[in-house]
């Protein structure tokens, strides 16, 4: 039924692949790193934890070189429109590699984790694998590629969540994550199939063109969008697709929690933005053509739900990890605000907010781990009097939380500032969203401040022993994170410019 391709065709295919590989180097490099780690894990005997960790960090750092090379390349499709290389993608490559490195650092910091886990080898390998997957999520422009990369991230995430085999909560979290993830990706892929049916294309740019050309049945389109959103929404952990996140965040090893709350969330946003900016046609201004409005309304609903639900429920949490899980739901809501304005400023704001969120959230988890190392618990009440015992950690955590609230002079404030600017730049249309945003951030102040309150304002029950910090490395790490959080809160121009450059993606149908 299909005849074999001629030699010329094969030649052209090979040529395309060659060029594609040339633009695919970071991913390849990271995949090599992945295998290398497994090999090292196999050959090296004995306690190799630090070796692997440092290898991973260095390897990831090495990838920066290749990624930076890609700035020069002008945006292009590769692998027959499966994959794309543009500033947007590059931005997220940096982002994910960075988050991966930080996660490794955090993992090294987590004493209990290192004590309990016997074979650490695959752990770092999986982290790298997840980095690759997320990078591919950010740069795939074909439904198939999107599905594959998301599954790659998902599967590694399930494993990492359940990595503490001995720990019930870890396994339970893994199971919930798996079931929930499988179902949502099932829904998503079903949605994909509908889109494919409507357009006969899987490349999102072609899809966009097709839809723009022939139009479509809005009802069916909405159904597809909903199903797809279910898949993306579960990655970004936005209401009502968030239910897995509190349990998973609480159950998973803390480094993985940090990683999921930043990495896979960001990946979800990347793919969400790319899909809806590119695949679904609409005129730039909201409420002008019906398509834009449909899914903007959808995103508005998600965003409001996330902001309110996340902050309100977080008020009740006594477990810090769980509290941060809910807060991450709320932050998903703020990020959605940046997306739904659907313009350059909004994208820029979202990307910047993601960067800030990376710093402050990983930082927060970092300190939480250091404290857990000392107290062996993540319960709010065990934080009493810690401010005295761990001055640096306490100060750093306070800064991160202030930044999460969005108070100056921190990067979190600038993030919120830009998000709200994006909203208000649209005139009075979105003011009410901005109002909800600021109000919920006032609510968030209360539960975030519970932590410093316990650390500083309350005395610990157990007798006060000498201030014993974690290792020098971690001291330095959190100090750097803290300073960066403040520095970029005051001099955020480089980051915002970077975000601006990165806000251009291939085949964009808006702005």
């Amino acid at each position, binding site marked *: 039924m*299909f005849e074999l391709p001629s030699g010329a065709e094969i030649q052209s295919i090979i040529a395309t692949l060659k060029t594609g590989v040339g633009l695919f180097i970071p991913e390849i490099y990271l995949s090599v790193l992945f295998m290398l780690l497994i090999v090292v894990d196999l050959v090296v005997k004995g306690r190799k934890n630090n070796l692997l960790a440092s290898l991973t960090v260095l390897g990831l750092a090495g990838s920066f070189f290749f990624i930076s090379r890609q700035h020069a390349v002008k945006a292009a499709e590769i692998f027959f429109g499966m994959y794309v290389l543009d500033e947007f993608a590059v931005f997220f490559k940096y982002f994910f590699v960075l988050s991966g490195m930080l996660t490794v650092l955090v993992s090294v910091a987590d004493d209990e984790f290192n004590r309990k886990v016997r074979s650490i080898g695959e752990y770092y390998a999986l982290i790298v694998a997840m980095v690759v997957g997320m990078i591919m999520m950010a740069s795939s422009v074909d*439904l*198939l590629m999107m*599905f*594959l990369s998301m*599954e790659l991230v998902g*599967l590694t995430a*399930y*494993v990492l969540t*359940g990595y503490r*085999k*001995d720990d*019930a*909560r870890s*396994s*339970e*979290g*893994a*199971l*919930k994550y*798996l*079931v929930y993830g*499988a*179902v949502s990706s*099932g*829904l998503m*892929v*079903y949605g*994909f*199939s*509908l889109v*494919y*049916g409507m357009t*006969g*294309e*899987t490349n999102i740019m072609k899809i966009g063109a097709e839809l723009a050309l022939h139009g479509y049945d809005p009802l069916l389109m909405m159904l597809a969008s909903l199903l797809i959103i279910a898949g993306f929404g579960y990655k970004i952990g936005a209401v009502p697709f968030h239910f897995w996140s*509190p*349990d998973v965040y*609480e*159950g998973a090893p803390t480094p993985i929690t940090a990683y999921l709350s930043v990495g896979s969330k960001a990946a979800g946003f990347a793919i969400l933005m790319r899909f809806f900016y590119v695949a679904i046609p609409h005129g730039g201004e909201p409420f002008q053509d019906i398509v834009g409005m449909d899914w903007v309304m959808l995103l508005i609903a998600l965003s409001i739900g996330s902001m309110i639900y996340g902050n309100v429920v977080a008020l*009740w949490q006594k477990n810090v990890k769980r509290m941060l899980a809910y807060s991450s739901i709320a932050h998903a809501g703020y990020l959605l605000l940046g997306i739904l304005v659907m313009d350059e400023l909004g994208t820029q704001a979202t990307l910047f907010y993601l960067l800030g969120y990376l710093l402050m959230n990983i930082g927060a988890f970092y300190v939480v781990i250091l404290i857990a190392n000392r107290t062996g618990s993540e319960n709010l009440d065990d934080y009493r009097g810690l401010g005295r015992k761990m001055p640096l950690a306490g100060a750093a955590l306070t800064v991160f939380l202030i930044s999460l609230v969005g108070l100056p002079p921190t990067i979190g404030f600038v993030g919120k500032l830009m998000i709200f600017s994006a909203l208000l730049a649209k005139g009075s249309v979105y003011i009410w969203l901005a109002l909800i945003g600021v109000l919920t951030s006032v609510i968030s102040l209360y539960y975030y401040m519970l932590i410093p309150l316990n650390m500083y304002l309350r005395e610990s029950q157990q007798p006060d022993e000498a201030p014993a910090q974690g290792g020098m490395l971690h001291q330095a790490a959190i100090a750097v994170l803290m300073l960066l959080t403040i520095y970029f809160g005051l001099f955020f121009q480089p980051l915002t410019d970077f975000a601006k450059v990165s806000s251009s993606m291939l085949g964009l149908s808006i702005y």
Partner: protein
Amino acid sequence: MELLTNIGLNHYLTISALLFGFGLFAVMTRRNAIVILMGVELILNAANINFLAFSKYSGGMEGVMFSLFIIVLAAAEAAIALAIVINIYKIFRSVDVSSIDTMKE
């Protein structure tokens, strides 16, 4: 009669929709983790049928590719899923998902 004799796209879609529904039903109602995973497989296969049908009627090969990859991924997912389920069984001595709710609220 004519409806039965020449099979059209809608038939496929109906089938897949039914499969999808069964899958969801299984996921929502069954207690056993394994059965839930089977439900997930049903959902994925519903998608597969869609892809294949659309591909058949629109003439592109993408649908076929897609369904192939879905099958592969389903297998991978199942592998990991079973590993986790086994681990769960080790700890909880049960694979009844409704009883696994130590973390809530």
